[in-house]
């Protein structure tokens, strides 16, 4: 039956629901700039009705649920794109360091080759001149010094990348621990049929950070979320996290272990994937090309040396010493210090320059690698440039598609101050109106009570 008191209860319910909705709005506004926050919505429903004769009375409003607005599919895509972005970012920054070794067209190994052959050519105009011979030795020393420097720099870039790997693994382990903890709580809430809201936001945010670091696969299963990296090595299963370990392998690089198994080559995304890609593929490739160039060039010059005679009429000795193989560029040294030992002569007479032609021929003859020393170096520079440009382009592309995805997600989950302000004003009016109902019912109740007290006196 309708009554004043039922109106009062409906108004009280409205006040409560509106307070709840104001809470939600206030929380949204408070978190407007919180990264990873998904806006919440107060879901209001009609309270059940009462049937009385022909009349149906509504029973007011009910704040049924506070719902987070999110899109799991988009979040998943963002995580994937973040892995790509993290990887290309790491590759691009590592490659820029490598490119630094080849970034001058007038200095470095390429220019050293020219300077060396020029000094030999200069020697041919006066083969007995000691200053000319000294100039050849100096140019050879600069060349071998720059080879050594390039090898050292590649090594130090590699060791920098190893540090990145170690630090990244530490970060990954910290994140997976936090995610496992949250995952347990989220699972409990979801089993109870509740919206894990804030916890899920935090978890998504952490997964997004994790995606920046390595490739992550998400699987939703009975016992909550499972995260794996590499080719399915577990990071988080339910409320349990699995830490990655690092160890130093035979070549001195840091490898990544999961449950005691080496998964280094399976890591494909994020900072870790990009770093490993450059460290294990690009740098060894550049370094082996440098090593081949150093040892093949040294061998060609040495063989030209031995086909001639030095200033004293003795058979020419090796100009360079080199240990062929992995350490060639680092080991390239000038083997002689006496300028008279340069074998310019082809017949043993001091004034002959007949062997200079053999030395100079190295400049225009293909090494066993297939190109002349200068061209071999130029190819290497072009390769490094291409790889760097490619990584930069991929990074730009994946950054911009990440921006787009984030825009899409923002359109769904982002807090709009305008929207919240509108809601705020609405709820304010609702609250004021409900309060007015309470005062009105109160006044009416007063009137009802006064009805029995005294009959109205005639004026």
């Amino acid at each position, binding site marked *: 039956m309708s009554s004043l008191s039922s109106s009062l209860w409906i108004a009280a319910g409205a006040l409560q629901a509106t307070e709840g909705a104001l809470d939600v709005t206030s929380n949204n506004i408070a978190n*407007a700039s919180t990264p990873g926050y998904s806006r919440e919505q107060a879901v209001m429903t009609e309270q059940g009705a009462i049937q009385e004769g022909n009349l149906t009375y509504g029973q007011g409003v009910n704040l049924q649920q506070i719902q987070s607005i999110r899109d799991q599919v988009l979040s998943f895509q963002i995580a994937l794109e973040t892995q790509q972005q993290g990887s290309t970012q790491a590759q691009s920054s590592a490659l820029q360091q490598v490119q630094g070794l080849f970034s001058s067209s007038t200095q470095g190994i390429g220019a050293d080759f020219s300077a060396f052959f020029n000094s030999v050519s200069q020697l*041919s105009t006066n083969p007995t001149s000691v200053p000319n011979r000294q100039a050849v030795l100096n140019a050879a020393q600069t060349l071998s010094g720059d080879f050594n420097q390039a090898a050292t720099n590649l090594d130090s870039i590699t060791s920098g990348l190893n540090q990145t790997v170690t630090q990244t693994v530490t970060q990954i382990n910290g994140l997976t621990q936090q995610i496992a903890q949250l995952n347990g709580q989220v699972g409990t809430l979801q089993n109870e049929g509740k919206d894990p809201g804030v916890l899920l936001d935090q978890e998504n945010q952490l997964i997004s950070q994790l995606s920046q670091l390595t490739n992550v696969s998400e699987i939703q299963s009975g016992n909550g979320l499972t995260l794996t990296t590499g080719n399915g090595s577990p990071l988080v299963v339910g409320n349990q996290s699995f830490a990655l370990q690092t160890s130093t392998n035979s070549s001195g690089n840091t490898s990544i272990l999961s449950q005691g198994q080496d998964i280094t080559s399976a890591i494909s995304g994020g900072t870790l994937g990009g770093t490993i890609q450059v460290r294990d593929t690009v740098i060894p490739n550049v370094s082996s090309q440098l090593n081949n160039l150093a040892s093949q060039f040294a061998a060609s010059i040495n063989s030209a040396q031995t086909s001639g005679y030095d200033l004293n009429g003795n058979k020419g000795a090796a100009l360079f010493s080199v240990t062929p193989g992995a350490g060639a560029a680092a080991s390239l040294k000038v083997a002689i210090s006496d300028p008279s030992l340069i074998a310019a002569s082809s017949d043993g007479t001091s004034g002959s320059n*007949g062997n200079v032609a053999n030395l100079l021929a190295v400049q225009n003859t293909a090494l066993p690698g297939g190109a002349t020393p200068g061209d071999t170096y130029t190819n290497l520079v*072009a390769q490094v440039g291409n790889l760097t*440009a490619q990584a930069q382009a991929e990074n730009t592309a994946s950054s911009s598609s990440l921006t787009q995805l984030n825009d899409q997600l923002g359109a769904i989950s982002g807090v709009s*101050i305008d929207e919240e302000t509108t809601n705020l004003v609405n709820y304010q009016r609702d609250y004021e109106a409900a309060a007015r109902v309470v005062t009105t019912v109160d006044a009416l109740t007063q009137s009802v009570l006064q009805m029995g007290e005294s009959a109205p006196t005639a004026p």
Partner: protein
Amino acid sequence: MRVNPNFAPDILNDVFQSQAQEQTDLQELSTGRRVNLPSDNPTAFAADVQNQAEQSQTDQYLTNTTNLEGLFQTADSTMSSVVSALNQAISLGTEGSNGTLTLAQQQALAQQVQGIQSQMLQYANTSYEGSYIFGGTETTKPPFVADVTQVAGVSYQGNAGVNQVEIANGRSIQTNLPGSQIFLGSGGNVMASLQQLVNALSSGNTSAIGTATTAISASLNYVSTQRVFYGSALDQMNSNQSYLQTEEVNLQTQDSGLVAADMTAVATDLSQATTTHDAALAALAKVIPNSLLNYLQ
């Protein structure tokens, strides 16, 4: 339709992009190069490295050419002195063979020819930058020494070797004639014919003087043809120099095409980037404080 309410990151992104463009343009303007790193344009950068190598090689060819020019000039002027000394010897020989001179006068002439002989020895031992130029590839000791046991009055200590120097890509030039070929040639033996004249004048044998003078004339002709070698080498140096200089200009032009910045375009680009940057900043400033709250009191 709901749009992403937080568009500040997007605009910020634009601000960063226009800022990066400004930096790139400024770098291009200050270096004058469009390609500063291999990744800017790998192909152009690699071609630039190659081009620099070719330029530096061309520079070296120019240096070689200049060095050789000095050598050839020395050799050519020596040859010219040889020719005039031989002419002088011929006139002495002609004077000695005219039949009116006394033996004493002929012997005086013989002494003059001996003077020419020692001059000739000096010419044959000419050096350039510390190396004897007529000793074949034996350049560290004097190629000719006086030796009375020899018919020519000298013995040759050099060899018959010749040197080649590269003066352009794939182009080498012979840089010397062995002294034995110039001064002791079978087509005209300078040293021997002079000795022959000295002997003839000393003995006063008029017909022998005539024969010796004819032999010197033959040597003169022969040496003159040998001199052509140095003369033409000098000409080649001159033409090679202008060839290399043209080549250098070509290479520099090519290089500019590869890596040089188009200043006008870059300057225009820069002012565009600055405008974009300003616009993005203005948008950011205008949009951030805007919300419904501004209109509610």
